[in-house]
């Protein structure tokens, strides 16, 4: 035992607890696997230990020791690869896949959370060693709140409005509002779709949102979340019943067509508005500087 033992242990505990808090098994059903959770808990513990060790190593003038943080970076990049690989492999077995963009988003989140843990335990140990245990508790809570803010991204409901719209057929063409979805030939299938299907029109609130919701990855994420929450009326080998989203080229609205098990319009609207805006789908064409084209 030396003067650093208690602060380090304290910071590691705080860091690990924050990682546990960040596990939230929700409708995405991930991570629900006990072993997957153990992996992430262990990595969270390592991250917390790394964060906690920074300040003591500086205080004992072991400056080179800080280079172990670079090790952490490569270690946690590996986490992202691991998550991406697992989810991609599982995606082929989903009735409505997540899509590569959504998977990348989840994988990046897993990596990012470990850095948040490093940050939290670093701040905690800094406050403990420079002030006292009470200061470190306050610092832990504050950094926790900051982490929480960065943990939750933006939602689709913020950038677009969602309206329910009836499905209709014009000849063999299936339409949501005036957006063409696909050609369904057999009358029996058409009836099935009209009975079980739901249609929604998502209208972007501004020009940036128009690009974001047009992204194919973002559209797949909407379908996946809807299918996970409401169930889906299809089986393998029924491609005609695959939920689809198509775009109105004139104004950027998108038409959602889905066949849910639970045909609850209000719930579906709520789910769509809660779909995360994927980081890699966000586009901001309006941020382009007018001079931009001259400089390139």
């Amino acid at each position, binding site marked *: 035992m030396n003067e650093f033992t208690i602060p380090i242990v304290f910071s590691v505990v705080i860091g690990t607890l924050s990682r546990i808090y960040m596990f939230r098994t929700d409708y995405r059903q991930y991570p629900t696997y006990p072993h997957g959770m153990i992996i992430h808990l262990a990595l969270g513990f390592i991250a917390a230990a790394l964060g906690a060790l920074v300040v003591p190593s500086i205080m004992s003038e072991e400056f080179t020791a800080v280079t172990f943080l670079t090790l952490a970076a490569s270690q946690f990049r590996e986490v992202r690869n691991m998550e991406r690989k697992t989810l991609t492999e599982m995606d082929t077995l989903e009735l409505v896949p997540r899509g590569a963009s959504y998977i990348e988003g989840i994988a990046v989140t897993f990596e990012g959370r470990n850095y948040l843990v490093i940050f939290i335990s670093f701040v905690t140990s800094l406050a403990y060693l420079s002030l006292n245990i009470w200061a470190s508790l306050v610092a832990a809570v504050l950094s926790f709140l900051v982490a929480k803010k960065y943990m939750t991204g933006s939602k689709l409901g913020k950038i677009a409005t969602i309206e329910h719209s009836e499905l209709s057929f014009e*000849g*063999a063409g299936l339409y949501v509002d005036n957006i063409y979805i*696909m*050609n*369904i*030939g*057999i*009358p*029996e*299938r058409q009836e099935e779709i009209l009975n079980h299907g739901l249609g929604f029109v998502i209208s972007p609130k501004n020009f940036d949102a128009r690009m974001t919701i047009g992204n194919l990855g973002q559209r797949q994420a909407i379908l996946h979340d809807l299918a996970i929450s409401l169930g889906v009326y299809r089986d*393998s*080998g*029924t*491609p*005609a019943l695959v939920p689809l989203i198509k775009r109105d080229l004139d104004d950027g609205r998108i038409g959602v067509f889905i066949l849910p098990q639970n045909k609850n319009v209000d719930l579906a609207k709520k789910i769509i508005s809660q779909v995360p805006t994927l980081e890699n789908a966000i586009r901001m064409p309006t941020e382009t500087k007018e001079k931009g084209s001259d400089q390139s």
Partner: protein
Amino acid sequence: MILEKVILAAITNSVNKVPVGGNVFVCDSKEEMDKVAAELEAILDGIAHKLSNDVYIIVKH
């Protein structure tokens, strides 16, 4: 082998309207066409699209 966007079969009750050489199923009536198309859709994992009142095609997407 993964097939994409391929016409797997055509179903018609008007034999002049489909190309010669594909997997063409000629039917006598509209009802028979619906039935054959539904069966083929299930068997081939494709979608039955209606080109006109006389022609259905089964496409793998």
